[in-house]
């Protein structure tokens, strides 16, 4: 990763900006059932393998700053939400994510189904995910 950042930096003009968009490492994806203004949390998804990759990305960005070829211009985190019509779409949604994919903790998928069965008419399933944007300025 450090090598890729260095290479990209080599193609940037002085003062140019390197921007990384990637999933947030600590704001994990979560699943909830929403009905009107009510929001019932179901589970926070797990993805330990991916968290290691994201940590490596953070370290690589820090390293090229430490090396002096970039300065940190800013970091911003954001959350985005997708609304699904039924539990079967949750599986489809997760399959759209590039591996390694997040998974439900033990028992949480069954809890989703149970909660869905008792959810009011018009309810939706909310999947909330987060990303982080890091901007580095080429020195």
């Amino acid at each position, binding site marked *: *990763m450090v*090598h*890729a*950042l260095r*290479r*990209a*930096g080599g*193609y*940037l*003009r002085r003062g*140019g*900006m*390197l*921007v*990384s*968009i*990637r*999933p947030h490492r600590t704001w994990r994806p979560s699943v909830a059932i*929403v009905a009107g203004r009510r929001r019932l949390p179901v589970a926070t998804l797990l993805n330990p393998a991916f968290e290691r990759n994201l940590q490596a*990305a953070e370290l*690589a*960005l820090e390293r090229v700053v430490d090396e002096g070829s970039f300065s940190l*211009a*800013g970091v*911003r985190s*954001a959350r*985005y939400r*997708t*609304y*699904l*019509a039924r539990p079967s*779409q949750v599986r*489809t*949604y*997760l399959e*759209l*994510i*590039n591996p390694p994919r997040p998974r439900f903790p033990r028992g949480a998928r069954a809890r989703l189904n149970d909660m869905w069965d008792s959810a009011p008419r018009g309810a*939706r399933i909310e999947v909330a*995910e987060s*990303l982080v*944007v890091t*901007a580095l300025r080429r020195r």
Partner: protein
Amino acid sequence: MATTELSAYPGEGFEPALIERFVSLHHKRVLEVGCGDGRLTFQYAPRALSVLAIDLDRPSIEEAVFEQRARGPSNVDFRLSSIERLNAPGAPFDVALFSWSL
């Protein structure tokens, strides 16, 4: 609260708006690393001067080129390449974007 076409990525315009909190893409020369099928590229390219968008996945690049032929824009050069092996015409760039690829 409408259920839209299923995607595991943010909605159209969400990521460009975040990027532009740090740097305007207007009339800029952009290198995008890990462009995939051009999902994000097509969102910001109309504002950019030129875009060199690379990815290692051949089917994704082919899909991006197919989509580009169907809907434009014409200022994007999609290429099958890694950043390590890139021969980069258009350099130096104003912005290097690692789109979900670091």
